[in-house]
Protein backbone atom coordinates (compact mmCIF):
# COMPACT_ATOMS: atom_id res chain seq x y z
CA UNK A 1 0.00 0.00 0.00
CA UNK A 2 1.20 3.52 -0.82
CA UNK A 3 0.02 6.81 0.70
CA UNK A 4 1.33 10.33 0.12
CA UNK A 5 1.19 13.42 2.29
CA UNK A 6 1.97 17.11 2.01
CA UNK A 7 3.06 18.75 5.24
CA UNK A 8 4.15 22.33 4.72
CA UNK A 9 7.09 22.07 2.35
CA UNK A 10 7.36 18.34 3.03
CA UNK A 11 6.20 15.92 0.36
CA UNK A 12 6.45 12.30 1.38
CA UNK A 13 5.07 8.97 0.26
CA UNK A 14 4.88 6.07 2.66
CA UNK A 15 4.65 2.56 1.32
CA UNK A 16 4.46 -0.79 3.03
CA UNK A 17 2.08 -3.28 4.57
CA UNK A 18 -1.48 -1.90 4.98
CA UNK A 19 -1.31 -2.89 8.66
CA UNK A 20 1.19 -0.06 9.10
CA UNK A 21 0.23 2.42 6.38
CA UNK A 22 -3.57 2.40 6.81
CA UNK A 23 -3.54 3.69 10.41
CA UNK A 24 -1.21 6.51 9.39
CA UNK A 25 -3.37 7.45 6.42
CA UNK A 26 -6.44 7.52 8.68
CA UNK A 27 -4.84 9.46 11.53
CA UNK A 28 -3.18 11.97 9.21
CA UNK A 29 -6.01 12.14 6.68
CA UNK A 30 -5.98 15.97 6.55
CA UNK A 31 -2.47 15.83 5.10
CA UNK A 32 -3.13 13.22 2.41
CA UNK A 33 -2.09 14.44 -1.02
CA UNK A 34 -1.54 13.35 -4.59
CA UNK A 35 0.95 16.13 -5.13
CA UNK A 36 4.33 14.52 -5.68
CA UNK A 37 6.90 17.24 -6.42
CA UNK A 38 10.12 17.03 -4.31
CA UNK A 39 8.83 13.85 -2.78
CA UNK A 40 10.61 11.65 -0.27
CA UNK A 41 9.89 7.94 -0.14
CA UNK A 42 9.58 6.06 3.13
CA UNK A 43 9.56 2.30 2.63
CA UNK A 44 8.36 0.00 5.38
CA UNK A 45 9.50 -3.59 4.91
CA UNK A 46 8.50 -6.55 7.03
CA UNK A 47 11.48 -8.53 8.26
CA UNK A 48 10.54 -11.72 10.06
CA UNK A 49 14.21 -12.55 10.53
CA UNK A 50 14.63 -9.69 12.99
CA UNK A 51 14.13 -10.21 16.70
CA UNK A 52 10.78 -9.38 18.27
CA UNK A 53 10.83 -5.68 19.33
CA UNK A 54 11.70 -5.23 23.00
CA UNK A 55 10.66 -1.59 23.26
CA UNK A 56 8.89 1.07 21.20
CA UNK A 57 11.06 2.46 18.43
CA UNK A 58 10.75 6.01 19.84
CA UNK A 59 13.15 4.98 22.59
CA UNK A 60 15.84 4.71 19.90
CA UNK A 61 17.71 7.83 18.85
CA UNK A 62 18.89 8.11 15.26
CA UNK A 63 22.65 8.17 14.70
CA UNK A 64 23.93 10.13 11.73
CA UNK A 65 27.25 9.86 9.98
CA UNK A 66 28.37 10.84 6.51
CA UNK A 67 24.86 11.91 5.50
CA UNK A 68 23.18 8.67 6.55
CA UNK A 69 21.05 8.30 9.68
CA UNK A 70 20.35 4.90 11.19
CA UNK A 71 17.89 3.68 13.79
CA UNK A 72 18.74 0.26 15.10
CA UNK A 73 17.14 -1.66 17.96
CA UNK A 74 15.86 -5.20 18.47
CA UNK A 75 13.15 -5.66 15.85
CA UNK A 76 14.15 -2.63 13.80
CA UNK A 77 16.74 -1.66 11.22
CA UNK A 78 16.10 1.72 9.67
CA UNK A 79 18.08 4.19 7.66
CA UNK A 80 17.41 7.62 6.25
CA UNK A 81 19.52 9.24 3.53
CA UNK A 82 18.38 12.87 3.26
CA UNK A 83 20.37 13.60 0.12
CA UNK A 84 18.74 10.68 -1.69
CA UNK A 85 15.27 11.57 -0.28
CA UNK A 86 15.02 8.00 0.89
CA UNK A 87 14.13 6.26 4.12
CA UNK A 88 13.66 2.56 4.72
CA UNK A 89 12.59 0.72 7.83
CA UNK A 90 12.95 -3.05 8.14
CA UNK A 91 10.73 -4.05 11.03
CA UNK A 92 9.58 -7.25 12.65
CA UNK A 93 5.87 -7.95 11.88
CA UNK A 94 5.10 -7.23 15.56
CA UNK A 95 6.09 -3.57 15.05
CA UNK A 96 3.15 -1.26 15.71
CA UNK A 97 1.76 1.73 13.79
CA UNK A 98 3.24 3.83 16.60
CA UNK A 99 6.73 2.56 15.74
CA UNK A 100 6.16 3.35 12.10
CA UNK A 101 4.77 6.78 12.95
CA UNK A 102 7.93 7.57 14.89
CA UNK A 103 10.11 6.57 11.95
CA UNK A 104 8.09 8.83 9.64
CA UNK A 105 8.41 11.70 12.15
CA UNK A 106 12.19 11.28 12.15
CA UNK A 107 12.19 11.36 8.35
CA UNK A 108 9.99 14.48 8.45
CA UNK A 109 12.39 16.19 10.87
CA UNK A 110 15.30 15.53 8.51
CA UNK A 111 13.35 16.50 5.40
CA UNK A 112 12.23 19.75 7.02
CA UNK A 113 15.80 20.53 8.00
CA UNK A 114 17.28 19.80 4.60
CA UNK A 115 14.63 22.06 3.06
CA UNK A 116 15.42 25.03 5.30
CA UNK A 117 12.93 24.42 8.12
CA UNK A 118 12.83 22.93 11.59
CA UNK A 119 10.60 20.45 13.36
CA UNK A 120 10.11 21.97 16.79
CA UNK A 121 8.90 20.34 20.00
CA UNK A 122 6.43 23.04 20.98
CA UNK A 123 2.78 23.93 21.14
CA UNK A 124 1.85 26.20 18.26
CA UNK A 125 -0.95 28.65 19.11
CA UNK A 126 -2.41 31.30 16.83
CA UNK A 127 -3.53 34.40 18.73
CA UNK A 128 -4.84 37.46 16.89
CA UNK A 129 -3.53 35.99 13.62
CA UNK A 130 0.01 35.71 15.00
CA UNK A 131 1.77 32.42 15.74
CA UNK A 132 3.44 31.61 19.03
CA UNK A 133 5.71 28.63 19.68
CA UNK A 134 5.41 27.64 23.33
CA UNK A 135 8.08 25.22 24.50
CA UNK A 136 9.71 23.91 27.63
CA UNK A 137 10.50 20.86 29.65
CA UNK A 138 8.11 17.95 29.69
CA UNK A 139 5.28 18.89 32.05
CA UNK A 140 6.03 22.62 31.89
CA UNK A 141 2.52 23.39 30.64
CA UNK A 142 2.54 23.36 26.82
CA UNK A 143 -0.64 21.32 26.57
CA UNK A 144 -2.23 23.32 29.38
CA UNK A 145 -1.40 26.59 27.64
CA UNK A 146 -2.95 25.24 24.45
CA UNK A 147 -6.12 24.18 26.26
CA UNK A 148 -6.41 27.49 28.14
CA UNK A 149 -6.09 29.44 24.89
CA UNK A 150 -9.43 28.25 23.51
CA UNK A 151 -10.96 29.32 21.20
CA UNK A 152 -7.64 30.37 19.65
CA UNK A 153 -6.51 27.85 17.03
CA UNK A 154 -3.88 25.34 18.08
CA UNK A 155 -1.62 24.26 15.21
CA UNK A 156 -0.41 21.38 17.33
CA UNK A 157 0.13 20.89 21.04
CA UNK A 158 3.40 18.96 20.69
CA UNK A 159 5.24 19.29 17.38
CA UNK A 160 5.16 22.13 14.87
CA UNK A 161 7.15 23.11 11.83
CA UNK A 162 9.00 26.38 11.30
CA UNK A 163 9.82 27.67 7.82
CA UNK A 164 11.39 30.86 6.50
CA UNK A 165 8.46 33.05 5.47
CA UNK A 166 8.82 33.42 1.73
CA UNK A 167 5.85 35.81 1.62
CA UNK A 168 7.67 38.38 3.75
CA UNK A 169 10.99 40.21 3.48
CA UNK A 170 12.13 38.37 6.57
CA UNK A 171 10.62 36.33 9.33
CA UNK A 172 9.41 32.80 9.85
CA UNK A 173 6.08 31.04 9.83
CA UNK A 174 4.83 28.34 12.14
CA UNK A 175 2.86 25.43 10.68
CA UNK A 176 0.61 22.66 11.86
CA UNK A 177 1.60 18.99 11.87
CA UNK A 178 -0.43 15.83 12.41
CA UNK A 179 1.86 14.72 15.24
CA UNK A 180 -0.32 15.70 18.20
CA UNK A 181 -3.59 17.46 19.00
CA UNK A 182 -4.95 20.36 16.94
CA UNK A 183 -7.81 22.77 17.35
CA UNK A 184 -9.42 24.65 14.48
CA UNK A 185 -8.68 24.77 10.77
CA UNK A 186 -5.75 27.19 10.72
CA UNK A 187 -2.63 25.50 9.39
CA UNK A 188 -0.04 28.29 9.48
CA UNK A 189 0.67 31.76 10.84
CA UNK A 190 3.52 34.27 10.88
CA UNK A 191 5.74 33.48 13.86
CA UNK A 192 5.52 36.34 16.39
CA UNK A 193 7.49 34.91 19.31
CA UNK A 194 8.99 31.83 20.90
CA UNK A 195 8.08 31.42 24.56
CA UNK A 196 9.95 29.16 26.96
CA UNK A 197 7.61 28.16 29.76
CA UNK A 198 8.66 28.54 33.38
CA UNK A 199 6.24 27.44 36.10
CA UNK A 200 5.65 30.32 38.47
CA UNK A 201 3.04 31.93 40.71
CA UNK A 202 3.17 35.13 38.68
CA UNK A 203 2.86 35.75 34.97
CA UNK A 204 5.50 37.83 33.26
CA UNK A 205 7.85 37.85 30.31
CA UNK A 206 11.59 37.79 30.88
CA UNK A 207 14.28 38.22 28.22
CA UNK A 208 16.54 35.20 27.76
CA UNK A 209 20.20 35.51 26.86
CA UNK A 210 21.06 34.38 23.34
CA UNK A 211 23.05 31.45 24.72
CA UNK A 212 20.21 30.32 27.00
CA UNK A 213 17.70 30.72 24.16
CA UNK A 214 19.88 28.73 21.79
CA UNK A 215 20.35 25.95 24.32
CA UNK A 216 16.66 25.68 25.12
CA UNK A 217 15.67 25.75 21.44
CA UNK A 218 18.22 23.10 20.49
CA UNK A 219 17.04 20.92 23.37
CA UNK A 220 13.57 21.02 21.80
CA UNK A 221 14.67 20.13 18.29
CA UNK A 222 13.86 16.46 17.72
CA UNK A 223 16.42 14.25 15.99
CA UNK A 224 18.95 17.02 15.33
CA UNK A 225 19.64 17.71 19.01
CA UNK A 226 20.86 14.19 19.63
CA UNK A 227 23.50 14.03 16.96
CA UNK A 228 26.81 15.86 16.87
CA UNK A 229 26.84 15.63 13.07
CA UNK A 230 23.74 17.81 12.67
CA UNK A 231 24.12 20.09 15.68
CA UNK A 232 26.34 22.83 14.24
CA UNK A 233 23.97 23.35 11.30
CA UNK A 234 20.94 23.14 13.56
CA UNK A 235 22.38 25.77 15.89
CA UNK A 236 23.09 28.02 12.92
CA UNK A 237 19.48 27.56 11.75
CA UNK A 238 18.16 28.56 15.17
CA UNK A 239 20.40 31.62 15.12
CA UNK A 240 18.69 32.56 11.84
CA UNK A 241 15.32 32.21 13.56
CA UNK A 242 16.46 34.22 16.58
CA UNK A 243 17.61 37.03 14.31
CA UNK A 244 13.98 37.56 13.28
CA UNK A 245 11.89 36.24 16.14
CA UNK A 246 12.19 37.24 19.82
CA UNK A 247 12.58 34.53 22.44
CA UNK A 248 11.34 35.05 25.99
CA UNK A 249 10.87 33.09 29.16
CA UNK A 250 7.15 33.12 29.92
CA UNK A 251 6.65 32.74 33.65
CA UNK A 252 3.39 30.91 33.61
CA UNK A 253 0.64 30.33 36.11
CA UNK A 254 -2.06 28.01 34.86
CA UNK A 255 -4.70 30.55 33.88
CA UNK A 256 -5.58 32.22 30.62
CA UNK A 257 -4.48 35.70 31.73
CA UNK A 258 -1.04 35.04 30.25
CA UNK A 259 -2.42 36.28 26.94
CA UNK A 260 -3.17 39.67 28.51
CA UNK A 261 0.47 39.88 29.56
CA UNK A 262 1.64 38.89 26.08
CA UNK A 263 -0.75 41.32 24.36
CA UNK A 264 0.41 44.09 26.65
CA UNK A 265 4.13 43.50 26.13
CA UNK A 266 4.34 42.15 22.59
CA UNK A 267 1.46 44.16 21.10
Amino acid at each position, binding site marked *: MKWSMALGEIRMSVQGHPRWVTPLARAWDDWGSDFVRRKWTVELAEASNLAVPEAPLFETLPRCQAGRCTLEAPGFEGYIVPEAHTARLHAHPAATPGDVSYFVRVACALQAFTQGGLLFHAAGIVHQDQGYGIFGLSGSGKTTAAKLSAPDPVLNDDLVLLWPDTDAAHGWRIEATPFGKRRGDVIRAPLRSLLWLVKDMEIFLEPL*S*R*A*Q*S*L*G*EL*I*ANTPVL*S*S*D*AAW*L*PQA*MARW*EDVMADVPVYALHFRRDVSFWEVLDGQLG
Partner: protein
Amino acid sequence: MANWDDVLVVQPDVVTREADGESVVVLPTQGKFIVLNATGALVLQLADGTRSLHDIATAVAEHFGAELDVVEPDVLSFADRLMHRGVLISAKQSTG
Protein backbone atom coordinates in the same frame (compact mmCIF):
# COMPACT_ATOMS: atom_id res chain seq x y z
CA MET B 1 38.67 14.56 41.22
CA ALA B 2 40.72 16.75 38.88
CA ASN B 3 44.41 17.37 39.61
CA TRP B 4 46.73 20.22 38.68
CA ASP B 5 48.73 18.15 36.25
CA ASP B 6 45.66 16.78 34.45
CA VAL B 7 45.61 17.57 30.74
CA LEU B 8 42.00 17.77 29.60
CA VAL B 9 40.22 18.04 26.29
CA VAL B 10 36.62 18.58 25.22
CA GLN B 11 34.79 15.30 24.67
CA PRO B 12 34.58 14.76 20.86
CA ASP B 13 30.75 14.59 20.67
CA VAL B 14 30.30 17.89 22.51
CA VAL B 15 29.26 20.83 20.32
CA THR B 16 29.87 24.40 21.45
CA ARG B 17 28.77 27.75 20.08
CA GLU B 18 29.46 31.26 21.27
CA ALA B 19 26.57 33.67 21.71
CA ASP B 20 27.07 37.22 22.97
CA GLY B 21 30.11 36.34 25.11
CA GLU B 22 28.61 33.20 26.58
CA SER B 23 29.00 29.66 25.27
CA VAL B 24 26.33 27.05 24.72
CA VAL B 25 27.74 23.58 25.29
CA VAL B 26 25.51 20.81 23.97
CA LEU B 27 25.97 17.18 24.98
CA PRO B 28 24.02 15.32 22.29
CA THR B 29 24.38 11.88 23.80
CA GLN B 30 22.84 13.11 27.07
CA GLY B 31 20.27 15.40 25.45
CA LYS B 32 21.49 18.21 27.71
CA PHE B 33 23.16 21.57 27.40
CA ILE B 34 24.90 24.04 29.66
CA VAL B 35 25.61 27.74 29.28
CA LEU B 36 29.05 29.04 30.27
CA ASN B 37 29.98 32.63 31.03
CA ALA B 38 33.04 34.23 29.47
CA THR B 39 35.42 32.76 32.06
CA GLY B 40 34.01 29.28 31.68
CA ALA B 41 34.14 29.59 27.90
CA LEU B 42 37.83 30.57 28.15
CA VAL B 43 38.64 27.54 30.30
CA LEU B 44 36.90 25.30 27.80
CA GLN B 45 38.76 26.90 24.92
CA LEU B 46 42.09 26.41 26.70
CA ALA B 47 41.37 22.75 27.43
CA ASP B 48 42.81 21.68 24.10
CA GLY B 49 44.70 18.58 25.16
CA THR B 50 48.07 20.33 25.46
CA ARG B 51 47.75 22.39 28.68
CA SER B 52 47.59 21.14 32.25
CA LEU B 53 44.97 22.62 34.59
CA HIS B 54 47.77 24.58 36.20
CA ASP B 55 48.67 26.04 32.79
CA ILE B 56 45.01 26.90 32.21
CA ALA B 57 44.66 28.59 35.60
CA THR B 58 47.79 30.64 34.87
CA ALA B 59 46.42 31.70 31.49
CA VAL B 60 43.03 32.63 32.99
CA ALA B 61 44.69 34.66 35.75
CA GLU B 62 46.78 36.52 33.18
CA HIS B 63 43.77 37.12 30.91
CA PHE B 64 41.69 38.68 33.67
CA GLY B 65 44.57 40.28 35.59
CA ALA B 66 43.69 38.23 38.68
CA GLU B 67 45.83 36.58 41.34
CA LEU B 68 46.71 32.98 40.53
CA ASP B 69 45.98 31.95 44.12
CA VAL B 70 42.42 33.18 43.68
CA VAL B 71 41.88 31.65 40.25
CA GLU B 72 43.39 28.21 40.84
CA PRO B 73 40.72 26.72 43.14
CA ASP B 74 37.93 27.99 40.89
CA VAL B 75 39.50 26.47 37.76
CA LEU B 76 40.06 23.15 39.50
CA SER B 77 36.51 23.02 40.81
CA PHE B 78 35.07 24.08 37.46
CA ALA B 79 37.11 21.50 35.55
CA ASP B 80 35.97 18.87 38.02
CA ARG B 81 32.32 19.73 37.37
CA LEU B 82 32.80 19.64 33.61
CA MET B 83 34.51 16.24 33.87
CA HIS B 84 31.64 14.98 35.99
CA ARG B 85 29.15 16.14 33.35
CA GLY B 86 31.10 14.53 30.51
CA VAL B 87 32.15 17.77 28.83
CA LEU B 88 35.86 17.38 29.55
CA ILE B 89 37.85 14.16 29.49
CA SER B 90 41.49 13.30 30.03
CA ALA B 91 43.59 13.86 26.91
CA LYS B 92 45.03 10.36 27.46
CA GLN B 93 41.49 8.94 27.39
CA SER B 94 40.78 10.91 24.22
CA THR B 95 43.69 9.38 22.33
CA GLY B 96 42.71 5.96 23.48
